């Protein structure tokens, strides 16, 4: 197994042991070599020292060919157990004496080799010249056993092996303990990572063991896990929310892949289609088309490529597409309103298609009913309008008759009364003339009443010409043209009035009648005061115009009678008038869509109001200030 594949714990151990082993080995080899070389040098030096001494001592024995001396000298070498053999060669190179004496000659070199010390396989051979002064007399041969060397090195070897063994043991023990500092956090991280990747459990955490880089790594890892965990939870939460929303939507929602395979129906969609189980809808669109038939509202059957989902899959965005849906082979028929769109990912690629649908069958039915009702209503309106027009025409012909036929006899009464007066002038007395006059006056008065009644009737029938008009100018005109300013005792207080949308001729009539009334009824007050203004109705938002006077006033219990035709609260003798003015006011205001009413108190004055629908509510001054009319 290659090093990179073995577990980190063993990897660390191997690295530590290999490192320490290599260091130890190198150390031992160096030491060993040094020792070896040093020891050899020492051996050579010792051997050469002994050689020199023996050679010096042997000079005489050799010079005099004295074997006994030579033997004795060589025997002294017993003190050196390593020297296993020694021999003295004479000048001619012939073995002269040997040590130990019992050693066969064959064990010695036949002739001395060159001077010096040389290591053989298991011995050190040394050749030391023996000289007397400058004269060489022979050669000493020394053979030193290398047993000491080997013995020593065996010992060294043993020590080295022991050291290495102990070192390894120590290294192993130490590394076993120490490597945990590194391997444990890494293993823990590895374990956690494995748990995360295998179980997808992002809630596990690694314990931090120190504050070193591994600690940082653990922290970072845990933090990453935390973030992933939080994001996962948020995602999950969102997914649940989305799922809950989708499932509880009132609208049906169907999801399909891009191939038209239906992937999901929400609850409403299942209910809308009348499905109970997955098997019923988990199909391809094409299969779906064998169960249902779609057609337009007008009943034209839609081919599959015109189905809402097919159109969405082609990239169309649908909204409020009304389609009839029928279950083939049954009488199940509904009308759905479809919508939908392709869902795209962040890169803009379409991923799925979403179709929404709602059942609008009832709505359609209701709409049809409303349409039918409208048709009926229109029919009825046409009928009623015709009836109303007929009634109007009748009324018109009636008032025409009144205008023409009622006035004629009056004219005759007056005319003939006058003719009679002229004719009977000589015989008629004062009383008779007064009767005649009463007949004439009454006829004229009735003629006036009829004329005004006709005006009133026309007021209700003539066409409204609505224009945006300057109310202030209109009121000022009415006061000027009506000659109301002639009465200089009146204290006028006229506020600025908002513009209105009204018929100028008719509205002028309204103001004339109201101002005329106010002038008339305040005429007997010592300090007559007339206020004209406008306010905004708190409930209706309409403009409420008013004319207030401090004149005769009226009893509120008759307030409703004021606006009736020929209704009067005062006698003609008290205040002249014919009781048609306010009826005209009411009729005109009603035709403008407004209301009329009055407030008053006997002897304290009256306020007459009329409202007009507001056109521009902002145009009314909030606090209408009262301006005296310029004279």
């Amino acid at each position, binding site marked *: 197994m290659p090093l990179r594949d073995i577990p980190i714990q063993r990897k660390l151990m191997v690295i530590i042991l290999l490192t320490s082993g290599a260091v130890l080995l190198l150390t031992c080899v160096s030491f060993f070599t040094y020792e070896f070389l040093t020891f050899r040098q020492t051996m050579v030096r010792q051997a050469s020292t002994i050689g020199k001494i023996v050679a010096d001592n042997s000079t005489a024995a050799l010079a005099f060919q004295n074997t006994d001396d030579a033997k004795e000298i060589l025997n002294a070498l017993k003190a050196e157990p390593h020297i296993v053999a020694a021999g003295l060669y004479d000048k001619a190179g012939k073995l002269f004496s040997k040590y130990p004496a019992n050693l066969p000659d064959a064990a010695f070199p036949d002739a001395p080799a060159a001077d010096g010390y040389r290591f053989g396989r298991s011995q050190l051979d040394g050749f030391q010249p023996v000289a007397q002064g400058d004269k060489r007399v022979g050669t000493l041969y020394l053979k030193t056993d290398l047993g000491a060397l080997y013995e020593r090195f065996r010992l060294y070897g043993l020590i080295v092996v022991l050291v290495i063994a102990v070192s390894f043991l120590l290294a192993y023990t130490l590394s076993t303990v120490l490597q945990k500092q590194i391997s444990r956090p890494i293993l823990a991280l590895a374990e956690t990572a494995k748990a995360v990747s295998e179980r997808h459990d992002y809630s596990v955490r690694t314990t931090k063991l120190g504050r070193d880089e591994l600690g940082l790594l653990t922290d970072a890892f845990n933090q990453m896990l935390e973030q992933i965990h939080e994001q996962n939870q948020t995602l999950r939460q969102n997914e649940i929310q989305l799922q809950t929303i989708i499932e509880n939507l009132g609208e049906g929602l169907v999801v399909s892949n891009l191939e038209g395979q239906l992937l999901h129906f929400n609850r409403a969609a299942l209910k809308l289609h009348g499905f109970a189980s997955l098997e019923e809808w988990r199909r391809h669109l094409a299969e779906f088309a064998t169960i249902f038939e779609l057609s337009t509202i007008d009943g034209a059957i839609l081919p599959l490529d015109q189905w809402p989902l097919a159109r969405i899959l082609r990239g169309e965005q649908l909204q409020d597409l009304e389609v009839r849906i029928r279950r083939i082979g049954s009488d199940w028929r509904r009308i759905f309103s479809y919508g939908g769109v392709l869902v795209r990912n962040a890169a803009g690629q379409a991923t799925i298609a979403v179709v929404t649908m709602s059942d609008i069958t009832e709505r359609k039915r209701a709409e049809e009913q409303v349409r039918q009702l409208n048709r009926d209503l229109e029919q009825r309106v046409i009928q009623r309008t015709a009836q109303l027009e007929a009634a109007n025409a009748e009324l018109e012909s009636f008032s025409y008759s009144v205008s023409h036929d009622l006035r004629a006899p009056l004219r005759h009464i007056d005319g003939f*009364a006058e003719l009679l007066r002229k004719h009977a002038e000589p015989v008629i007395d004062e009383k008779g003339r007064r009767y005649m006059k009463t007949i004439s006056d009454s006829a004229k008065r009735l003629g006036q009443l009829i004329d005004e009644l006709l005006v009133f009737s026309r007021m209700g029938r003539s066409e409204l010409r609505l224009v945006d008009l300057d109310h202030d100018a209109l009121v000022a005109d009415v006061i000027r043209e009506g000659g109301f300013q002639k009465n200089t005792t009146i204290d006028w207080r006229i506020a600025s009035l908002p513009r209105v949308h009204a018929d100028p001729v008719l509205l002028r009539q309204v103001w004339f009648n109201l101002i005329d009334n106010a002038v008339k009824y305040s005429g007997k007050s010592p300090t007559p005061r007339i206020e004209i203004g406008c306010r905004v109705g708190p409930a209706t938002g309409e403009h409420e115009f008013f004319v207030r006077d401090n004149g005769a006033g009226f009893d509120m219990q008759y307030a409703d009678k004021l606006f009736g035709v020929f209704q009067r609260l005062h006698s003609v003798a008290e205040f002249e008038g014919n009781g048609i003015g306010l009826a005209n006011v009411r009729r005109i205001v009603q035709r403008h869509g407004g209301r009329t009413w009055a407030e008053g108190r006997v002897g304290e004055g009256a306020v007459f109001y009329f409202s007009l629908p507001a056109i521009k509510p902002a145009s009314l001054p909030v606090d209408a200030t009262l301006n005296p009319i310029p004279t």
Partner: protein
Amino acid sequence: MNELRSILFAEDNPNDVELTLAAFSEHNLANQVFVVSDGEEALDYLFHRGRFKQRANGNPAVVLLDLKMPKVDGLEVLRIIKQDEKLKSIPVVMLTSSREESDLIQSYQLGVNAYVVKPVGFESFMDAVKQLGAFWALYNEPPPGSLQTGR
């Protein structure tokens, strides 16, 4: 007064006729007034038909028409007069009780020369009729050659 200026007066109500004639007589115009009691008679007169087949040629100086009359009403008579080549130059005055806007508008659209509403008061009425008679029968110059020649 070289020529005899006649007035054709169409009015169905005898009281009105009497009052109007009374007014005319105050101006000595009564003799020149020819009264018919409905629109049909007025047309007969103008077109020399029926009982007026034998009447002398020539047109009245003015035709006074009441609006509401039996058979053919005043507006219809006016329309026929104003559409007829020979008659359309005759001045026509509406003398009526109606103040209705529609009557006024229609009358003027049909080409009426004047429109007078009969006042209820006798004095005003007398005044109006007198002035009317005086104006059309005395002061106004009729179209040349349209008048009656003798009786």
